[in-house]
């Protein structure tokens, strides 16, 4: 009877483990052919979290290294300002006049230690034209705390650029940095302008922009010599470390 064959064959079934192993085999073949791995959901989540942490750490680390926390202005007539990160490395070098631009044009100081960057700038071919006997090389340092400021000033005093050319080093108020940049001046020149303005309220930031550091310092010294209100100056521009 045909029914007997049907009934007999009907008992033959594929077991579940055979089906499961076949499906597993097909999944692995699919992965080989499509060339990418399909991870279980929990692994995908872990991978995603790791990637996120990596990116966040990377971005924050980059921001950490690129955030300026202190500044060093170098003013003769060329006016240049170095922004430094927590490790005293240069994160940006900005020229605040044409002479400063010509100095920085051929130099790459970003990422360098500030003393090395200062030496490169001072020793550069373009700078030699400005380092005359009449010129006044002024370094101005601004930092978040006094300890860091002193540390930077000591570094500048001992670097070749500072020692060889008899630069003067002053401490500036970090609070004026933004103000100075808004006026288009380096922090050092702006501090000098503020000191001069205490003696002469007709002088403007634009006037100082056009003056060399030697000229501004000369005017300040002349006012001092004339004994005009010597008690009021010095709040924002702390003299020190003369060479």
């Amino acid at each position: 009877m045909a029914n007997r064959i049907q009934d007999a064959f009907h008992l033959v079934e594929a077991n579940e483990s055979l089906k499961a192993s076949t499906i597993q085999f097909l999944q692995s073949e699919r992965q080989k052919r499509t060339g990418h791995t399909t991870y279980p959901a929990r692994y995908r989540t872990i991978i995603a979290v790791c990637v996120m942490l990596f990116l966040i750490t990377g971005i924050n680390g980059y921001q950490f290294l690129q955030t300026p926390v202190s500044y060093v202005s170098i003013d003769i007539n060329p006016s240049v300002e170095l922004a430094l990160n927590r490790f005293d490395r240069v994160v940006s070098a900005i020229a605040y006049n044409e002479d400063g631009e010509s100095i920085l044009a051929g130099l790459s100081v970003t990422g360098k230690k500030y003393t090395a960057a200062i030496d490169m700038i001072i020793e550069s071919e373009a700078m030699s034209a400005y380092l005359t006997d009449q010129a006044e090389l002024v370094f101005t340092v601004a930092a978040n705390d006094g300890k860091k400021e002193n540390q930077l000033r000591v570094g500048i005093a001992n670097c070749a650029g500072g020692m060889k050319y008899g630069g003067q080093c002053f401490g500036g108020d970090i609070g004026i940095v933004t103000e100075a940049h808004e006026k288009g001046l380096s922090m050092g020149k702006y501090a000098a302008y503020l000191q001069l303005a205490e003696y002469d309220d007709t002088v403007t930031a634009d006037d100082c922009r056009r003056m060399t550091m030697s000229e501004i310092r000369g005017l300040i010294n002349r006012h001092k010599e004339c004994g005009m209100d010597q008690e009021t100056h010095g709040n924002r521009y702390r003299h020190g470390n003369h060479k």
Partner: protein
Amino acid sequence: MRSEGEVTQAVEKYANMIQRICLCSLKNQSDTEDIFQNVFLKYMLHEGIFNDEEHEKAWLIRVTINACKDHLKSLFRHRTIPLEALTEQAAEFPEEHREVLEALLSLSAKYKDVLYLHYYEGYSASEISGILGKKENTIYSLLSRGRGLLKDKLGGEEFGE
């Protein structure tokens, strides 16, 4: 390539059928596993479109039978006796069903496939001829002779069309 869902659905739907075809031809369960992987891999990679469910089923039968033949050739198992495969899973079958299966599986491969397709899957001689790529008259002959041999083995019981 067919989607994962489509392939899984096909495994669920046709696993028993392929298991029965394998039983007709193969010697043991590990061979069956190879055929399962082979057949469903071909199905997964098959880019053609099936007109309907019957078309899909006939395609799978043909691929399974060919895969079994190739497997046997590759292993030089021309004289395979599939009873071993049956004993692996038929221990719990009722006596009368086991007897029928043993009788059927003891026939040569050319009879088993056509008898299975005709009596279990319900295909006509014409349809089997299409699936197996043989002449319709050959299928009629195989069915007739297979029935006779089965009748002898089962003690003279008659199998109708």
